[in-house]
């Protein structure tokens, strides 16, 4: 048992879990690549999606249905913060702002996330439904973005692709389990999917910015990801014996997050996230 004797009880500690030095994926950290205004705007959309979803998921930690889910949802939140940091760091190079300037000192109309990501946690089924849509979309997105002609975006996408693949597994397994578990869990899963589906459409909308960037091979056209998304969802729903929402739930939300228009859920989320940083402008933490 000599290994245990070697641990110094006087608190000589080592940091082996996370390197405390900033860890950014991508070329910008290594080579100081600077994003153009268009690329910065695009990176901000992706970064805000990840950040806002991570902020919601953080609320589950210590409140999850079982300890294993405290760990799993925490892991997903942690991965998403990593993606957000890399993307916002890169987005900030255009205007000389840091990841924290962008996260903590922008107001609601300056956030570029799609509406899906700001939808509340709801019950566990809602969180899973939102996670399913998000992760199936993100797997398609990052797989395509690894081919980007922008080397920073390609590197961030390559790192993120492996992680969102795990997030997708997690969401699919729970979708199938809740749909096939008890009557109650199936009912809740169906409600969760119904409440989430209005926010699917916005994810796949093209606009002038992505069209310009896609023409240069930098961005992925959201509309090009729809077929892959639909195919995967069809497989999952077939296994879970679920159907795509119809009737009332076939409603499509207006969207507009990419232009800074948001639902009423984003403001309170940002107020909470930003409160301490804004109380001490210029402070270092």
């Amino acid at each position: 048992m000599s290994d245990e004797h070697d641990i110094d009880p006087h608190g000589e500690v080592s940091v082996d879990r996370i390197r405390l030095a900033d860890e950014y994926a991508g070329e910008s950290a290594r080579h100081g690549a600077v994003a153009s205004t268009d690329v910065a705007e695009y990176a901000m959309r992706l970064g805000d999606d990840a950040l806002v979803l991570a902020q919601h998921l953080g609320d589950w930690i210590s409140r999850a249905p079982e300890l294993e889910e405290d760990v799993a949802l925490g892991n997903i939140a942690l991965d998403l913060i990593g993606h957000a940091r890399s993307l916002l760091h890169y987005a900030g190079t255009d205007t000389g702002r840091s990841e924290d300037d962008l996260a903590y000192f922008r107001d609601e109309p300056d956030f570029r996330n799609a509406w899906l990501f700001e939808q509340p946690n709801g019950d566990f089924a809602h969180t899973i439904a939102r996670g399913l849509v998000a992760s199936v979309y993100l797997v398609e997105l990052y797989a395509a973005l690894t081919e980007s002609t922008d080397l920073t975006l390609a590197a961030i996408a390559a790192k993120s692709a492996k992680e969102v693949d795990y997030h997708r597994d997690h969401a699919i397994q729970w979708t199938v389990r809740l749909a096939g578990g008890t009557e109650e869990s199936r009912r809740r899963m169906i409600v969760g999917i119904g409440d989430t589906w209005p926010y699917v459409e916005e994810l796949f909308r093209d606009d002038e910015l992505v069209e310009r960037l896609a023409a240069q091979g930098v961005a992925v056209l959201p509309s090009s990801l729809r077929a892959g998304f639909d195919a995967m969802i069809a497989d999952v729903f077939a296994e879970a014996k679920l159907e795509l929402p119809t009737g009332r739930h076939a409603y499509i939300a207006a969207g507009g997050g990419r232009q800074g228009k948001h639902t009423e859920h984003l403001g309170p989320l940002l107020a909470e996230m930003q409160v301490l940083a804004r109380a001490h402008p210029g402070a270092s933490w």
Partner: protein
Amino acid sequence: MTSPADLSLVGREFSPEEAQFNDLIAEDSRIEPRDWMPDAYRKTLIRQISQHAHSEIIGMQPESNWISRAPSLKRKAILIAKVQDEAGHGLYLYSAAQTLGISREEMTDQLLEGKAKYSSIFNYTTPTWADMGSIGWLVDGAAIANQVPLCRASYGPYGRAMVRICKEESFHQRQGFEILLELMQGTEEQRRMAQESVNRWYWPALMMFGPPDDESPNSTQSMAWKIKRFSNDELRQRFVGMLVPQAEVLGVTLPDPNLKWNEEKQAYDMSEIDWDEFHEVIAGRGPANAERMRRRREAHENGAWVREAAAAYARKQAA
């Protein structure tokens, strides 16, 4: 002949099983789940390991309070990783206790019904961000001082779980120290926030080592069984010895005017700990006892349908 590890055996003949247990303890070997062990040893371990697991789980709450408001994305990521580690520690410890013949459900019920204890330190609240620093530096620091000797605990699954936990706790302590260091090098408001937080947590952290040696009823037997290796007061002294130079580096003042190295005793003199406060918090009258239990019950009850669904799905798959 070695003296018996089980103090109830002093002065009588041992059975062969008892003799083997004593020998294993005497030679510093591990007791493993299939080995014979005295009932009282088993019960003591179940009590201690499950209390430790519960402490990890309840201990997630005061820190998760700041996940949503962490003042930078880097700090947010580190805090999530830390709270997530605590859930992981709870999981290994429940598993270690399960090897002694108790189920996770039973232990969870004992916690939720208020029959099992958890470390009373987690009944304190975290009003400022600096408390994330103090919890890491002082609370995790005290936990490490308590837990490192447990890596050598005679019961194998417990000792091995503790090795892993101690490695992660070291990281936690470091991140707490760094939070305070950053604050102490920051604005006047940040420095005040840090000092006030250290003032709040210092005494409760010292109480974590338990009552003074002459009032600690379970210690003697636990030391003979080699579950516990050092007395409460010995560990408390060591911990203070570790804090003093670190406080100097930080530039914070430890809130004890009588804290002084005593060359003759080779130990620190310190003020009397307010044990009335300790007993009040243990008795359920701390700053957040009710809130901690309410939140744990609420999470458990809100998650019941999810756990039932997972169990029902697993049964259908097995059929």
